[in-house]
Each structure stands twice: as C-alpha cells, then as structure tokens.
C-alpha cells in the first residue's frame, strides 16, 4: 500500500536508472483499477487473482486458511518481497523481511541497486567536526515512515595522514563503530566499505545504515498523528598515524526527522466499522471465525 505509492514517487528515478516497475498481488483487476486511480499509480499493478504466479514462485502465505477473510481475499496472498532483475532478466537482488510492514523506501532501493545517492534538498542532514575525523550524516528520504526502511548515509572523513581501525582488528585496537538508535528508531546492520588488513584503507568512508521509525512512537502518545522523531548517531574511533595514536574519540549528533503516516488502505474503513460492531456485541467472535477484516 504505502510501498506502492512510494514506488510511484520514485518511478522517474527508477526509470532513468533502467528499471521498470511491477507489482503483483491477488487483488482483483477492479480493486487494482480503483487503487491506481485514487493514488495515481501508472506502472503495472498485476492481478494474480487465483494466486497461480504466487504459488509457482513458492511464496504463498500458508499461514492463512482458505476460509479466513474471504471478502478481503486473505487466502492466496504472498509473503511480501521484492525481486530485481538486470537487463538480462536474471534476478540480481531480492529482499524479503519476516515482518510484512518492513520494506525499503524507493530512495533506499535505488541506493542499494545503483549506489547512487540522490538526496532531496529538504532531507535531514548534518555535519559534525572532530579533531581528526569529521562525520556527515544524510537521510535519503525527506521523512521517515513507520516501518519503511530508509537509509542513513554516514560519511566519515579522516585527516589524510591518519588511519582508523576496521571491525575485526585484534584486542587493544579501538575499532571504528557507528551506533544509530533513538526512541522509536530501529537501525539495521550498517554496510561498511571493504577494509584492508586491520585498518580502513580509505580516508573517506561511506557507511549506509538502514533506519526506520517504529510503532513505539505510537505508544508515546503521538497517536496516529506522529510528528517528529530523533535519530541518535554516535561514531567511536581511534585515529592513529604510523608512530602514535590519539586518544579515542566520539562524535555524536541528533538528527531530527519528520515522520509520515502510512497510506491508509480503503479496507481499513471497512475493518474499523466491523470492529465497532464487535465492540457492541456482548461476546467477541471466537478466534478463527472472523470473516475478513
């Protein structure tokens, strides 16, 4: 839902980089037509109504029984994920997450595929200057959305007569470490450039950290009207030259980011109405007897 709208927003960039975009679900053509018209989706939304393709791919969600959620067509949905092919049609990249709500933003996907860092002018960014090292952080998206992975690009520059130690160096070396977190912020593993033996070979390192805003923000009383969140970033390092090492250093920054709501599905209204109906009933439906949302 949100992902499909985001892809539309990144479509021109994806096309410019040589990619066509397709979405597949077991929705009917009518429902896809309605969604495409409301959200202005121009790329193909493909209807696999009997889940034949989803089954052939071996990714049908088998946790749902045929009798569950008939009106919403729950049975036959895929485990959500993305395949990317090169011009030869061979899969070059695929991405599946256990949680259905976790997926890469369009800008993040483009960064993974092309290495291109195209940062919107209004995306949050900061520069922090230390004695031997400087840190630039930029978010690839203007805003964070709940559970949609964006990418925080952290650029670490080292004074050119010095070096830093890479992860995996022996005890006694203070390895370079980047810590990203904050209330309601989840960071996944960072992608570090390849390092030489013991030390970072380059003095200008670009580290990508997938980040997302989590539902914890809703607990903090923001309700669905979430506003802003803060990403805490800390870089620990020890810079050395061939003769001596400086004291270990730490650069920190707090990056304030705007939050966006998820795109609410039309079906949610149906669901909210039903939920209100259930609340009025003295006894809730037994588990497994619900019909759809």
């Amino acid at each position, binding site marked *: 839902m949100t992902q499909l709208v985001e892809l539309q927003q990144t479509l021109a960039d994806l096309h410019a980089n040589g990619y066509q975009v397709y979405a597949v679900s077991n929705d009917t053509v009518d429902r896809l037509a309605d969604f495409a018209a409301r959200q202005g989706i121009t790329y193909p939304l*493909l209807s696999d109504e009997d889940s034949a393709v989803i089954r052939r791919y071996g990714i049908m969600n088998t946790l749902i029984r045929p009798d569950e959620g008939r009106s919403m067509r729950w049975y036959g949905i895929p485990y959500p994920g993305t395949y990317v092919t090169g011009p030869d049609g061979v899969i070059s990249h695929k991405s599946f997450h256990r949680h259905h709500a976790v997926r890469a933003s369009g800008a993040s996907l483009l960064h993974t595929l092309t290495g291109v860092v195209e940062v919107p002018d209004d995306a949050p960014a900061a520069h922090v200057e230390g004695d031997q090292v400087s840190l630039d952080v930029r978010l690839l998206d203007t805003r964070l959305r709940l559970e949609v992975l964006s990418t925080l690009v952290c650029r670490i520059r080292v004074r050119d007569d010095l070096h830093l130690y890479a992860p995996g160096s022996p005890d006694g070396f203070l390895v370079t470490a980047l810590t990203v977190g904050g209330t309601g912020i989840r960071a996944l593993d960072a992608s570090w450039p390849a390092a030489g033996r013991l030390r970072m070979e380059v003095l200008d390192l670009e580290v990508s950290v997938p980040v997302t805003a989590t539902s914890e923000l809703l607990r903090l009383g923001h309700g669905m009207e979430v506003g802003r969140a803060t990403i805490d970033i800390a870089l620990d390092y020890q810079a050395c030259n061939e003769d001596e090492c400086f004291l270990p250093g730490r650069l920190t920054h707090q990056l304030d980011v705007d939050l966006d709501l998820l795109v609410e599905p039309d079906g949610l209204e149906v669901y909210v109405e039903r939920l209100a109906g259930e609340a009025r009933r003295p006894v809730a439906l037994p588990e497994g007897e619900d019909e759809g949302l």
Partner: protein
Amino acid sequence: MGDPDDERYYDEFGFYSPMPLSRAARREPPEGFPTGPDVGVRLPDIRLPDQGGRLVDVHEHREGRGAIVVFHRSAFW
C-alpha cells in the same frame, strides 16, 4: 480503532496495528520462510492482467531493461 497503549495490539516485532493479533493477516512467517527463486536465476515468467485489464508479460514489457517486481499483500487492505 485499537488503542495504541494496549499491548495486545503489538506483535513480536513491536509493530502496532489496529487489527487484533489473532487475525490471520497479522500472522508472520517463521525464520527461514520460503522466498522463492534465488539470485542468479532468470525471473520466472509473469503474464497477468494489469489495472486496466491488459495482459502484461513482464519479460516482454520491460523491453530489455531491468525489472523491479514487488509482491505485496493487497492494494485494498
């Protein structure tokens, strides 16, 4: 709408949705769930109608460009 302060609406990932956890659409797969064809193989053929009812063959339609194919749960819910 479910209450964001109600623990029962949060799943094992800490994700909140107004839909109770007992609902089928909130069941998440175990570790190692199937993710279909692997990197390095040709994307299996997809020939399906689009939102306008036109039949689209992904490999023909992409005309020699790369393809990003997103399998999603629904555009409706």
